């Protein structure tokens, strides 16, 4: 950061791949977050979108309620969650009714990651829910009528009509959610500071620490490039795969 700059070729990549004690750990943390967050987000968003399908009263209100967390600032969200889950917070009081003495999820490695995932879910499912909800609305009724007349049960209708017709929305949501979940930063930054230990230090958080706290922009840039490559690769794979399962009719 200070002083001369020298061109080191691929040295920064060699460093993070071989001698950096933190890098692979942060890749692992990021992947763990993605593997936990993306499927749960989809299940939650799709489930709620189906539930507030046209038949329900007050649908607009539910849509609004579920979407609210997605439009509130993420830092404010994370701060409120931190207050809720800290040792003398609201959740600890609730846990004490059930005889849990030491409620401190942010004090253990698994608990901290779980808290980050749950908070991210709460923040993130509303957006996909809205996308799915709009997608469901655009499925023509006559398809369901035809399927019913042919004797298809509800699960079969879901599997053979709803999912294929919803596939463009699912594809869009999958691409976007994967990209954003690889870039997770604000939640661990505010909620856990990357701790305990480095259990919740994600790749973007690590590149922030290296670049803007330790002023080691070479390493930070290498981490960023690797992250970009991972996201580009996964997105490319998704686009290749879409021909098999996405139906644009």
């Amino acid at each position, binding site marked *: 950061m200070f002083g001369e700059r020298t061109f080191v070729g691929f040295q920064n990549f060699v460093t993070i791949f071989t001698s950096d004690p933190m890098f692979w750990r942060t890749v692992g943390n990021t992947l763990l977050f993605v593997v936990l967050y993306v499927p749960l987000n989809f299940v939650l968003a799709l489930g709620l979108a189906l539930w507030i399908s046209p038949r329900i009263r007050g649908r607009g209100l539910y849509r609004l309620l579920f979407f609210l967390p997605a439009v509130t600032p993420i830092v404010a969200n994370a701060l409120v969650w931190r207050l809720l889950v800290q040792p003398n917070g609201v959740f600890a009081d609730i846990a004490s009714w059930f005889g849990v003495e030491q409620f401190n999820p942010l004090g253990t490695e698994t608990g901290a990651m779980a808290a980050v995932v749950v908070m991210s879910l709460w923040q993130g499912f509303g957006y996909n829910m809205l996308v799915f909800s709009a997608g469901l609305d655009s499925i023509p009724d006559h398809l369901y009528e035809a399927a019913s007349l042919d004797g298809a049960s509800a699960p079969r209708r879901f599997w053979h009509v709803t999912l294929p017709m919803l596939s463009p929305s699912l594809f869009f949501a999958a691409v976007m959610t994967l990209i954003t979940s690889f870039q997770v930063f604000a939640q661990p930054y505010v909620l856990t500071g990357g*701790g*305990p230990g480095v259990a919740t230090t994600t790749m973007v958080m690590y590149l922030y620490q290296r670049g803007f706290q330790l002023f080691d922009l070479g390493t930070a840039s290498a981490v960023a490039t690797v992250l970009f490559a991972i996201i580009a690769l996964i997105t490319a794979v998704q686009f290749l795969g879409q021909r098999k399962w996405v139906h644009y009719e």
Partner: protein
Amino acid sequence: MKRFVGAPLAAVGALALLAGCSGGGGGSTQEDGVTTLTFSMWAGSTPETEALETLVGLVEAEYPNIQLELETAPFNDYWTRLAAQASGGTEACILGVQSPRATSIRELLLPLDDRMLADAGIDLAEFDSAIVEGTQVDGEQVAVPYDLGPLIVFYNADAFAEAGLDAPAEDWTVDDFSEAAAALSGDGKYGYAINPTVDTTTAWSLTLGGEQGVAADGSLQLTDPAMVEAVAYLQGLVADGSAPQLPATSDSYNALNSFVAGDAAMAIDGPWQLAYVAEQVAFEYGVALIPAGPNGSATPVAGSGYGVSASCEYPEEALQAISVLTGPEAQTALAEQGRAFPSRTAEQPAYYQGAFAIAEDTLSAAGATGEALRSTANFTQVNTLFNQYAVSALNGDMTAEDFLGTVQSQTEAGAGQ
């Protein structure tokens, strides 16, 4: 003035050298005999900014040929921005320097020799020696200190009385502390809220084992027996229920806020927090020395000062301005507001006005036993990792040796990059 923990700081790479960036020292100019200097400092609130503006007024009154352009940022952002400016060669002429971070930004700072200091009318003999030493790097003075703070124990006097305990005596020991912490715990309250930072732990390692986590030569020695003993002691407090379990958060105010809220009866912090505590608490409070270990009481001292950036085109004028910023009048003004405990020994009595009178005995005694908090060039990384792993260690998920060894080895590996 500001806590000296846990945030940005430069891990100076293997290529240590001159700040080779050209550029105009952040827009300082000279016109019609008036020198305009940029002055960059941290300030986290309107009162802090106003206090700085008062100081700028003092400088301009003393030296009509100098004008200061003040730019402020909150403490953590200040270091981030300084790094960004340094990389572009646009850092300000006068920079706020905090003693534990002096090592990491030494390349940005002009070493101040005796002649320069004398020309500006600054006599370091008038300053507290611990903080003069704290603002040196390898024996070179890189900043002129304006405040200092030994770490002290804040205690809830009402809670002590309620538990039937005497207020901490000046010669209280670590055993007294442990007993008090145990007696003050129960019903969801705790005796002592731990701030899991290097500096708070250093207070314990100094008093228990007489050593810091950084050796006198500036090398990191977190695994020193004194540090292990300190961590083990703190682990014991958590295990006994005398101190609460720690959550992992990025908030360095957890311990102090828990004290202020009345959830914890004791906390360790610096006198720069007195103004905040006095404003916030709803109970009688007091301050005490760090309890004495086998070799008596000892406490780490840190503080802040102002330095001249190496790229500054008008170092003489900058140092003249600094002579006022750290001068008796400026320090008295800050002291009376409870914003900073003066680094000038003659001005220290001004601090003990009104709300801060309770700190007088403790701070004078602590000044006598103070030892400059040592730091390494990559102290930010040490701090960051220490805070993160300390949560696991103090909650009993890691042994003291494993914890300190992990932080030591990871920072050593990281420093080589």
